[in-house]
């Protein structure tokens, strides 16, 4: 059975995405790390579906794909706006809201 190593790989990929999200300050790389984490979640769903022989894993993969497409289109629009206004992609520079 390949599902256990696939789950381990999903954990590793999710960890890599999380490390990238926390360590990089460029907002484009933070988006890429989000994509990696979404992929890791999709891999976990596919591995679960393969383990039990059910199709639910692939259906959840379809939903994750839809979510990623919507998220990326809006987020890239925001990235374009931010780079247009602030002339930088540094996430620490976007501090107008004093969060």
């Amino acid at each position, binding site marked *: 059975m390949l599902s256990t190593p696939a789950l381990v790989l999903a954990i590793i990929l999710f960890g890599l995405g999380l490390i990238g999200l926390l360590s990089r300050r460029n907002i484009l790389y933070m988006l890429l790390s989000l994509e990696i984490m979404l992929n890791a979640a999709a891999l976990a769903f596919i591995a679960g579906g393969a383990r039990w022989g059910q199709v639910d894993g692939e259906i959840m993969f379809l939903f994750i*794909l839809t979510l990623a497409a919507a998220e990326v289109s809006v987020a890239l629009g925001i990235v*374009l706006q931010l780079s247009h206004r602030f002339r930088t992609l540094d996430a620490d520079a976007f501090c107008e809201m004093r969060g």
Partner: protein
Amino acid sequence: MEILFYIAAAVTFLATLRVITHVHAVHALLYLVVALIALSLIFYLLGAQFAAALEIIIYGGAIMVLFIFVVMLLGPLAVEQERTWLSPSAWVGPCILALVLLGEVGYLIASGDHPTMAVAEPRQKAISIALYGPYIIGVELASMLLLPGLIGAYHLGRRLSSEARSC
């Protein structure tokens, strides 16, 4: 089967590691495309052919093209920058990883060992029936998510062009 999975997993891991440690955005995107293709091979080995095809078409194709367009729009496209992006050394790493994947796919085709081909067609049917049966509310929710996504992306992009014209 097992060894193919572990090679693809190693390729995915290495490419992802390069994505989060690279400083050039285009190079990182190249590695991410390789990682997605390797992940698609893993999906295939897990018996999810439909998911593997979608991973390449939508993730590796559509979403990555969107990323690359935005990266191209972001920076000033200086000649020097183009030269560093297109330097041969930038292509060596992704090319080696992609050649490993190509070897795996060639081995899969040559060996004729398609363990899940016999069950592929009823599986597609089962996916479709489940998607439009018990999961119909999820499909509706996905459509309700995609429409605001479309409108939001249009709105954000449109204000950018009008502001650029005004100032």
